[in-house]
């Protein structure tokens, strides 16, 4: 008995206790809802049997119906554009800014700090602001572009099916930029300065230093940033109701917003769950990449 107690305060028991608390927390708050969600996708659910436990079993019917929806292909295509467009944009601009702010100039870190404002703002607020910027006839972006002479005709960012998904992607790039920049800045700061000095003495130019020192040294940071970017982008929801509502005609609808529409617009909770289970597969891949890329970080 005493041995158990003492191992709890100092030793393996303490470790197990900590792991146990975390595990219980995860199982209760993440594991069970996840299993419940998967269960929902195999049942027939509407609002009035949502609170009940036993519901009619639907098997794979929900999956078949989701895939045979006329907008299924469009939604998948949009999700792809949104996810890869956002990640590419956030990463490229974030990396560029991170390197820019590594340079020593007055107020560099203060200005870098200000960039965090975009990350602190709630998605709905960001969405509302971008909604005004992107408005068709009276939008800020159109006024600027027309003033600069880049476009002649009004661009209907929110109402043109060819533009709408790009409009939301643009807003999301802005939203995620600061987060990418901060993580990459941390990675950059961790690279020893003397490596660059040595390379410079050996005659390596800026581009060579970037490709042979910065990128290899940043590999695990980059992996983590990209994986987190995928997860955050797949759960980005607020911008859609605030900017385009997935429209017009589903041209900016993505899987996460579609799932919400099924559940809370049409009240077919099973179909909503089905779409989220499909998304789960993508997130699992991203998580695997994240775990793999951060494997070298901390070993206890």
């Amino acid at each position: 008995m005493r041995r158990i107690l003492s191992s709890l305060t100092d030793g393996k028991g303490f470790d197990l206790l900590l792991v146990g608390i975390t595990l219980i927390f995860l199982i209760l708050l993440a594991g069970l809802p996840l299993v419940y969600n998967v269960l929902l996708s195999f049942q027939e659910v509407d609002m009035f049997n949502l609170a009940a436990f036993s519901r009619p079993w639907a098997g794979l019917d929900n999956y078949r119906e989701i895939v045979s929806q006329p907008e299924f292909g469009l939604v998948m295509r949009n999700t792809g554009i949104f996810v890869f467009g956002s990640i590419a944009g956030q990463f490229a601009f974030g990396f560029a800014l991170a390197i820019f702010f590594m340079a020593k100039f007055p107020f560099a870190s203060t200005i870098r700090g200000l960039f965090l404002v975009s990350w602190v703002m709630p998605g709905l607020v960001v969405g509302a602001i971008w909604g005004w910027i992107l408005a068709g006839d009276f939008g800020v972006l159109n006024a600027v572009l027309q003033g600069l002479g880049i476009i002649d005709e009004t661009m209907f960012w929110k109402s043109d099916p060819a533009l709408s998904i790009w409009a939301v992607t643009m807003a999301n790039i802005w939203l995620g930029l600061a987060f990418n920049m901060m993580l990459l800045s941390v990675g950059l700061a961790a690279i020893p300065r003397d490596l660059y000095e040595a390379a410079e003495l050996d005659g390596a130019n800026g581009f060579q230093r970037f490709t042979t020192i910065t990128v290899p040294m940043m590999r695990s940071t980059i992996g983590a940033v990209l994986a987190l970017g995928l997860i955050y982008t797949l759960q980005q929801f607020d911008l859609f109701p605030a900017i385009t509502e997935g429209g017009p005609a589903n041209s900016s609808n993505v899987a996460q917003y579609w799932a919400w529409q099924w559940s809370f617009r049409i009240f077919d909770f099973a179909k909503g769950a089905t779409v989220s289970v499909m998304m789960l597969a993508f997130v699992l891949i991203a998580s695997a990449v994240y775990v793999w890329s951060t494997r070298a970080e901390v070993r206890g």
Partner: protein
Amino acid sequence: MTRNLRILLGAASAIAIAGAAAAQEDVTITVWSIDGDDRPGPSDTFSAEFSEMDNGITVDYRVVPFDEIVNETLRAYATGNAPDIVSLDNPDFALFSSRGAFLDITDMVAESDVIDQDAYFEGPLNSVMWDGRLYGVGKYTDTIGLFYNADMLEEAGIEPPQTWAEFEEAARALADPEAGVYGATLSARGNEEGTFQFLPVIQMSGGSYENVNTEGAREWLTMVKGMIDDGIMSQDVLSLGQWDSTGTFNNGNAAMAISGPWEIDRMVEDAEFDWGVTLLPTFEEGAERSSALGGFNLGIMSTTEHPEEAFEVLEYFVSQDDRLFPEFGYLPTRGDVELPESGVPLKDAALTLFQEQLQYAQPRGPHPDWQQISKAIYDAEQAALTGQMTPDEALSQAQSTIDGILN
């Protein structure tokens, strides 16, 4: 000093105890509605008034945005936190009343001195009935017509259009892209607002929500698509709600706008031109008319712990029906309310017109799965107007979706 302090403390605790006692006696009735979101409305105003009366009932009012109210109520109902009274758009009402989520108030109304079931108009009354029982009362009703900028029409020598062909002709004549003026605006948004404005077109061409692929509906979609393509109508009609869409009309950026009586007060304020309203155009002169039946209903949730007190609140709301039009620009759902002249000629003329238009207003549903039917209808409209599908393809797809829901 300490003495004073002690007296003060004593007084403070006495007040606190008295306050707690008063709070215990008061029954709290929660009311949810969209009123008060973008402008003051009846439910928020009447709730505050009733709450201030010394009658042992406190009303806890919450504004829920239009897009959220059905969700929020469903979620609250499923988890046992439903409000006592909720105000829903009339086509959403059947979803709840058909499943017993609203309290059957047939007998309470029969004994009430304030609420008289026979006084209500048929359309709004039907939307609160299910299986011959009464589950709520109409809060207010509305419909849509065609607003026009009388100055622009007069300058161009055009009469207010009575048919869709005249509507297109007028819009094309009045549009002035150089000056940023569109010929017409409406709302074809991908939500209930889209259906609200498009379903009347289906109905006046001989269809209904059960039968959407009519020749008239196809013609109309082709006409509107052509107007968007030619810049006669803004492409933003696909994403703007009616309130924002009519805002462009008030600013003089559109010569005509399809919208309803809730716009009148703001238009009187904002529009710096002479305007008028005419009935929603028809396909041929003298052909069948139709319009949307809008407006909200009030119902008591069946989960309420205080049905009597909730009904008292409901009675108070109904007793204030004569203020709906003068104060909020809404039309009452019953025929026994005198609508006073406002003294604003444009407003009174518009009111007369909308009362005439109400005779042609047809309800959406009632059907428990209205949301799904509505989605099929606005999806079809959007698919056709963006050119994703031809009007025929879009409407036949909607028809097969609707058939699946109805059967």
